[in-house]
């Protein structure tokens, strides 16, 4: 059964179509990324399924139940768009209110504050927090009551690099514990590193959806491998590598030489070949076709005006 099933969801703001007939299912125990450029409708989509926005058309259901009831939302931890708290209250008091609304006890509060490293600041007013701390408090609030479903809208927004790594690790950890995480992001790298499934949205239109693996290979020529190599003398390297069997093309880039080869060729073979010809490589790695490339293929290369 799908955790969240969306069918023909549409939303207009006047003449602007923020969402157009978007349909997809979020399978259980996945990290489901909703990827799209700024203004593509990610937050609108999440807003509708959390009942803070009204859909212009279409339906959705959580856990197969037809109506979105408040009881269902109590069992979902959500961070939507911005951290929303009472500015004049402390972190702890804000979480007490959230816990109370969710119908949970207060015993979780210490635990979730520790997870996001805010326990020392539990008595500080929300208004004194930095953007990153506010974001972490919002994640703590989402974790209250140990929900099985988490909805994160740009969870790493405003965090420092260490914070970003921590939150990504936290999301993977939650997923390993069997939680389903729905996550909106415009950061490809993030989706690629964290998500198991992805839906790509552009201008309110669903472009593609599936597991990250499926999406990355969809319509792609699967028989090639991308490698990047470099040595102290790239000109000689280029001459030598071009004689190697199984190579389709080699081109000089800023970083070295990019190779497109048959998928039968391995990094070890390339390394041995160059070494035997008297060239020592100082760089060799196999590039997967990145989600970024797929994303640009799917959505076009220009940012939306």
């Amino acid at each position, binding site marked *: 059964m799908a955790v969240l099933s969306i069918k023909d969801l549409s939303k207009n703001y006047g003449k602007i179509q923020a969402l157009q007939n978007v349909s997809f299912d979020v399978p259980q125990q996945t990290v489901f990324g909703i990827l799209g450029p700024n203004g593509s409708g990610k937050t609108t989509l999440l807003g509708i399924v959390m*009942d803070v926005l009204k859909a212009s058309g279409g339906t959705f259901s959580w856990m197969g139940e037809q109506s979105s009831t408040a009881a269902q*939302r109590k069992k979902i931890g959500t961070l939507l768009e911005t951290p929303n708290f009472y500015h004049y209250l402390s972190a702890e008091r804000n979480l007490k209110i959230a816990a109370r*609304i969710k119908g949970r006890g207060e015993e979780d509060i210490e635990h979730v504050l520790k997870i996001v490293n805010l326990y020392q600041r539990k008595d500080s007013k929300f208004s004194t927090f930095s953007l990153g701390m506010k974001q972490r408090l919002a994640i703590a609030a989402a974790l209250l009551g140990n929900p099985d479903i988490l909805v994160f809208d740009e969870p790493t927004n405003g965090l420092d690099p260490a914070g970003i790594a921590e939150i990504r690790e936290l999301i993977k950890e939650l997923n390993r514990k069997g939680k389903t995480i729905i996550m909106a992001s415009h950061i490809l790298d993030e989706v690629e590193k964290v998500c198991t499934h992805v839906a790509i949205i552009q201008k309110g239109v669903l472009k593609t959806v599936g597991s990250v693996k499926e999406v990355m290979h969809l319509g792609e020529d699967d028989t090639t491998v991308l490698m990047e190599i470099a040595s102290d003398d790239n000109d000689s390297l280029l001459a030598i590598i071009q004689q190697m069997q199984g190579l389709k093309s080699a081109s000089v880039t800023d970083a070295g030489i990019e190779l497109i080869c048959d998928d039968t060729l391995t990094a070890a073979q390339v390394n041995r070949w160059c070494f035997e010809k008297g060239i020592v490589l100082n760089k060799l790695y196999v590039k997967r076709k990145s989600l970024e490339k797929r994303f640009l293929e799917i959505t076009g290369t220009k940012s939306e005006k």
Partner: protein
Amino acid sequence: MVELLKIEWMKLKNYTAFKVLAIFFGLGVIVTNYVVYIINREVVQQVPAAGMVSFTPPYSFAMTWHTTSYASGCILLLPAMLLAILITNEFGFKTHRQNIIDGLTRQQFIGIKIMLALIFALVSTVLVFFTALVFGWSSGTSFSFAGIANVGYFFLKAITYNLFAVLIAVLIKRTGFAIGLLFIYMGAENFISQLLWGLSIYLKREKSTDLGNIGDYLPLNAVDGLLEFPDNAVKSMSKAIMPQDITWLVWVLAAAYLALFYFWATKKFVKSDL
């Protein structure tokens, strides 16, 4: 419901503006009445000398219920303002969204704000009741419940002002604009009602058409019309030229406006994007 009120209380109890405005209002009721009391004492002492007819002291039983209710009605803007701040705060902090996301229904969210409006009105009324009682006792006259209906009118006025503030807050969403509009609207309505009052007198005298006091048919003035200025010598004399109040119509309008504020605010919050 009790659970929801407890959540509201968690939001309120550490909010400075709440404490300040609550104390202002509490003191305001006492101070306003004390000032009116002093002024009247001076008048009461002076007027007989000027040859006026007999005059009941305004804070004696049973006048005290009416006088205290009317005088306290003038500072009902304070709890209304507080409600507008509390609700627009939620919009400002976007906690109205978060509360829904965390599992309140939209009806619960707006319902508890309306309940808060009701509670503020009740607490104000209880305060007015005891103030009237204390002033009455201190006047040395014998206790009487006559005219207690005016305390009821005060409650009606309080709940109307409060619900009006809830509606403005839900429609405007921004604290500054909402408070500003609340002030401007109240001023404008009083001004217009004065013009209409003039019109009513004109219609009665020149056209012999008594439509009652038309100024009382406006949303906030309808309840003001029920809680009239206490009778005094001057007012008694002017009654002859005044239009006859059409009390039943004012009642109907007061109830209709109250219902309008309630349903409009609820519908707006339940139906629109947050």
